[in-house]
């Protein structure tokens, strides 16, 4: 009975994503109220706008793979490897006295290429050889981590030219560059996944790969495309991180794997594949960011913040489930 009532409340919203947006506004307002004059400030908004893009790009990189019926556990180490290789170029070339513009021109495409290679490896193992995505990316994740550690011996790569810091700290017309990059990524991902033939095929494969194959879809090609795209996004996340932290290390971003999966799922993506909207993932990322920063500013203990994030994840997913059940019965 209560379920039906909650279900009816949720049905007032056109879809899951609208409900999610309300949750975001509620949390944003709550955080502003509990830390008056400190959360809702231009400085904090800019600070959050610099923090969440690296996480947001990882979340989208995860989402595009999940909708195709797979999962990509290697996202963070793909980014780490790309940023470490790029970082070596940045520091060595910088130390050799080469002009910053040339250094950046060499290092950034290198990061993209390395990440695409990682994505291609994932595609090879998953699409061509046919290993289950979770196992395949578990393997590639460990492989990439090993390569990172072999290169860095556990330390970090530093010595980047000052110009490189602009990607993490610079802004255009008051908007931090990370935010601009994230907007570009989100819009591009929307068009690629939800408004193109390629994206439609990815969703279909996520629904049912066998039927898709028999319907004439080149499943191998689409999956390669999905993992390559995911890898490319990881390179961008790695670029943001190495600029913001002025160094590259294999452990940077490792927490974003689990958080990325949480954000994708919180955003309404079906973990089994076939459904997921970019806008949902974006709102979920903003929800998690607002909770984290809001509670940090309010002064809540580090350990409790994780508990709260987990609690909100369960709450929203539970409400979504009840809402969808409500739709079925009414």
């Amino acid at each position: 009975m209560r379920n039906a009532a909650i279900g009816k409340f949720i049905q007032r919203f056109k879809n899951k994503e609208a409900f999610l947006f309300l949750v975001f506004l509620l949390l944003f307002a709550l955080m502003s109220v509990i830390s008056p004059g400190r959360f809702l400030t231009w400085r904090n908004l800019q600070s959050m706008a610099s923090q969440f893009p690296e996480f947001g790009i990882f979340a989208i990189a995860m989402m595009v793979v999940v909708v195709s019926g797979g999962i990509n556990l290697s996202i963070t180490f793909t980014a780490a490897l790309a940023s470490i290789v790029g970082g070596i170029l940045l520091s060595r070339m910088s130390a050799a006295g080469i002009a910053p513009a040339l250094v950046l021109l060499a290092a950034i495409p290198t990061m993209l290429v390395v990440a695409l290679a990682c994505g291609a490896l994932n595609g090879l193992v998953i699409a061509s050889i046919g290993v289950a995505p979770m196992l395949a990316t578990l393997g590639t994740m460990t492989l990439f981590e090993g390569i990172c550690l072999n290169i860095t011996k556990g330390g970090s790569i530093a010595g980047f030219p000052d110009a490189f810091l602009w990607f993490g700290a610079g802004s255009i017309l008051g908007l931090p560059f990370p935010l601009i990059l994230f907007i570009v990524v989100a819009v591009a991902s929307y068009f690629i996944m939800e408004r193109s033939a390629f994206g439609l095929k990815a969703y279909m494969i996520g629904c049912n790969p066998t039927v898709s194959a028999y319907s004439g879809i080149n499943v191998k090609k689409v999956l390669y495309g999905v993992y390559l795209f995911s890898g490319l996004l990881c390179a961008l996340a790695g670029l943001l991180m190495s600029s913001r932290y002025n160094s590259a290390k294999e452990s940077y971003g490792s927490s974003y794997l689990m958080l990325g999966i949480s954000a994708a799922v919180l955003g309404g993506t079906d973990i089994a594949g076939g459904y997921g909207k970019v806008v949902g993932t974006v709102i979920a990322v903003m929800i998690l960011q607002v909770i984290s920063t809001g509670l940090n500013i309010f002064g809540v203990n580090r350990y409790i913040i994780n508990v709260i994030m987990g609690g909100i994840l369960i709450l929203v997913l539970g409400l979504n489930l009840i809402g969808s059940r409500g739709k079925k019965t009414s």
Partner: protein
Amino acid sequence: MNFGKRIVLLLVVLAVLTGSAFAQKKPTIVIMPKLVGIPYFNASETGANQAAKDLGINVIYTGPTTADASEQVRMLEDLISKGVDAICVAPNDPAAVAPVLKKAKAAGIVVLDWDTPADKALVDLSVHQIDDKVFGEHVWDCLVKEMGATGDYAIITGGLSAANLNGWIDAGLAYAKVKYPKLRLVTDKVASDEKQQMAYQKALDLIKAYPNLKGIIGMSTPAPLGAAQAVQEKGLKAKIAVVGTALPTSSRPFLEDGSLRVANLWDPSKLGYLTVYLANELVKHKKPVNGMDVPNIGKITILADGKTVIMAPPTDFTKENAKNYTF
């Protein structure tokens, strides 16, 4: 969706109304260790909180749960938004915190580093417990006293990017090259990331890989304990001398049976106290001077660069005196 729209409007109005700034009377100082949860940094927290009480100011002692530089950066960004008067950080990686410290300075926040240095150009004061060169050389002297001036030894460090540990190790190695040329370092320093379990594991690996190992230096407080644990387990305490940076209370069981020969350190709670005290002085626009007497600490030294503060000489904790200390 009229109802939904109404809620949204109400919330936005509420949020905007409460967005007005509140004046903060007591200065707020942030002390961020490399990580929270290890005895060394728990002890410095006690000192920092004591200083807060004595000086009547707010101290926020917070840090990541693992020795992760990127987590420190994110926490510092949020604390800058919170609006604090001073930030004192023990960076896991000085390069990683450079951008966020720049942001802090731009926001008019006093910036200090403590326990381990950040980029000198970015901080107003750099609080060291001890002169790095003196300390490094002293640890090597202790090692030689225990294992002799010839033989194989290894170094287990904390995080590979920690500038304080690297400073002591580099000073010690340079000293040993001249004074103890017959000492042989078997391999590059091994990381244990401030985890005793990892130090224990790495020590076991070293013992297995280098059967002629006669000494292990542990830098960072969990490292000598992990190494001592390994030596104790293998029954090699007579053969391998373990020395390093450790707290007297946690080292006592290892000191008593000889698996750890001597621990060199200082009182971390004093370091926490001193850091808060100096940060508060800077917030009040009072620059500390060389040789000034700090209550509960004693006379501090400030080096010629005007930025580096040295607290005091190190203390050796041995089987005999470890029980006299409470930290």
